[in-house]
């Protein structure tokens, strides 16, 4: 690990000025009011997407065991760092290469230091945001794809292996396949629609999660003698904080994807997003209450996210009715999917595959079924997009995980798994709580 890290750092050093390019100091204020307003909106959206990383960290930590909590928090702290740095170094220029062949393009290492004269920071770059805002908003997005994988492989993957996988996944895979649509590539030309990333972010992350979970195998003790043994998460308050922060973040994730502060479009997007989240909660509650006889909070939390992932592809194309149905179905779907994936003996501690992959696909297809773009032709195109992203990401994830497995190994030792990754990988425990007065009505 250290060697790889070293290489990374040296590489960054060598590309020094090259990587991050010429600096000419601060720029003079520019003054277009429309740009100013829209840019404020895009910055706010960026903050909201940023806070999703805390959302993921909290959710994943909450739904896993306390002996692996430091490890999860560590990974989720590293991911935005890795995501932003690789995106600055090459990811942004892979994803938005300018005119290219539609499949792969690269605008070179490092970001230019944009100048007003160069037209990067005023209206000539864009009416909605400056070059820097563009980069930061997109960079925050990029990092979320890797975070999704983190949850599914939790409690058993080696820290260094995960960091290497994530660096490649977020640095190369995500931007290249992303360029096919958002970079103006072949799927964009074909009419594929994915407003804010049901497929480009969530399914891509979800496919990585699926491959990771399969290649790692289940956590010890999860499937014993043919029976599924639940491994409850260690803190549902933490998980709940995570989901509320993710919903909050989605205001920026979807609302920012309008790429301007256009009042009508942004506010519509926010409303469909919230209606779908609310419907996802209701859908999951109905499903879990019916199936399990008791309403499972962890499922309802997944249901909220399911609704959000579901609406993401078409958040700007739906009315309230459509948003409601998309969310409600996503909420039900996620419950069934979590149970089905468990039956298939794929161990996904936090439900990442169900939330991001299954509902990501559902949301992408829903663009062809509901709202303004509904139609057979669009549905077919959506199917093609789903398939193309699935194929590409699965292949990429298989290759990266296999290489990592061969060179550094993927999984911690059985002993470390029992003892917990916190002690094994970090030599540090997450909690040091003295036994305190009980909360079972006793006077102790």
């Amino acid at each position, binding site marked *: 690990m250290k060697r790889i890290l070293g290489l990374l750092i040296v590489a960054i050093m060598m590309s020094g000025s090259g990587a991050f390019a010429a600096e000419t100091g601060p720029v003079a204020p520019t003054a277009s009011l429309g740009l100013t307003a829209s840019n404020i909106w895009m910055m706010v959206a960026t903050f909201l997407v940023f806070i999703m990383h805390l959302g993921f960290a909290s959710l994943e930590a909450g739904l896993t065991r306390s002996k692996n909590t430091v490890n999860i928090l560590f990974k989720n702290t590293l991911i935005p760092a890795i995501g932003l740095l690789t995106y600055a170094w090459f990811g942004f220029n892979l994803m938005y290469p300018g005119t290219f062949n539609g499949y792969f393009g690269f605008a070179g290492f490092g970001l230019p230091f944009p100048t007003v004269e160069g037209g990067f920071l005023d209206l000539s770059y864009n009416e909605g945001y400056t070059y820097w805002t563009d980069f930061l908003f997109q960079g925050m997005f990029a990092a979320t794809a890797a975070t999704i994988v983190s949850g599914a492989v939790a409690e058993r993957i080696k820290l260094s292996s995960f960091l290497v996988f994530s660096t490649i996944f977020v640095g190369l895979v995500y931007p290249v396949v992303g360029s096919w649509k958002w970079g103006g590539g072949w799927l964009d030309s074909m009419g594929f629609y994915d407003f804010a990333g049901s497929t480009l972010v969530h399914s891509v992350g979800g496919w990585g999660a699926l491959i990771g979970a399969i290649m790692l195998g289940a956590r010890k003790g999860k499937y014993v003698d043919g029976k599924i*043994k639940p491994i409850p998460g260690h803190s549902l308050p933490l998980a709940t904080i995570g989901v509320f922060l993710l919903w909050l973040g989605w205001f920026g994730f979807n609302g920012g994807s309008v790429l301007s502060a256009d009042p009508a479009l942004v506010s519509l997007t926010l409303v469909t997003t919230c209606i779908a989240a609310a419907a996802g909660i209701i859908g999951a509650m109905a499903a879990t209450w019916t*199936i*399990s006889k008791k309403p499972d909070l962890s*499922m309802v939390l997944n249901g909220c996210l399911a609704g959000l992932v579901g609406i993401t592809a078409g958040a700007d194309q739906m009315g309230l009715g459509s948003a409601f149905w998309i969310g409600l179905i996503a909420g039900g779907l996620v419950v069934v999917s979590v149970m089905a994936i*468990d039956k298939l003996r794929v161990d996904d501690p936090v*439900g990442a595959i169900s939330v991001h992959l299954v509902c990501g696909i559902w949301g992408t297809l829903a663009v062809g079924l509901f709202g303004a773009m509904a139609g057979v032709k669009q549905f077919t195109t959506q199917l093609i997009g789903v398939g193309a992203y699935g194929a590409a990401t699965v292949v990429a994830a298989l290759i990266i995980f296999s290489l990592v497995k061969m060179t550094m190994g993927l999984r911690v030792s059985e002993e470390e798994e029992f003892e917990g990754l916190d002690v094994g990988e970090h030599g540090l425990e997450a909690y040091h709580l003295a036994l305190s007065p*009980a909360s079972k009505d006793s006077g*102790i």
Partner: protein
Amino acid sequence: MKMVSAIIKHFKLDEVRDALNKLGVQGMTAIEVKGFGRQKGHMEVYRGVEYEVKFLPKVKLEVAIPEEKLEEVLKAIQSTAKTGEIGDGKIFIYNLEDAVRIRTGEQGEGVL
């Protein structure tokens, strides 16, 4: 000396302690435990899978007493900790060979 170890329900702790105090018992130690006996645990559901939570939370109360108090202490615990339903708990009695007060180094029944 005897060590009386009673496994009781949490919400009975206050009552039992008060009853023992009335008998002149001057000290005791409580420990959070999980257990089962005739009372068998309950089902929980997590992410669609039902499973049995076999161990239920209880309090274990340890009271060191002079032998002559044993009878009344047992009676006091049994009657106050009782609700009449399964899960009320059990009392175990051990022989205690000796006791030391750390502060003074004294030994024997006097330290209880």
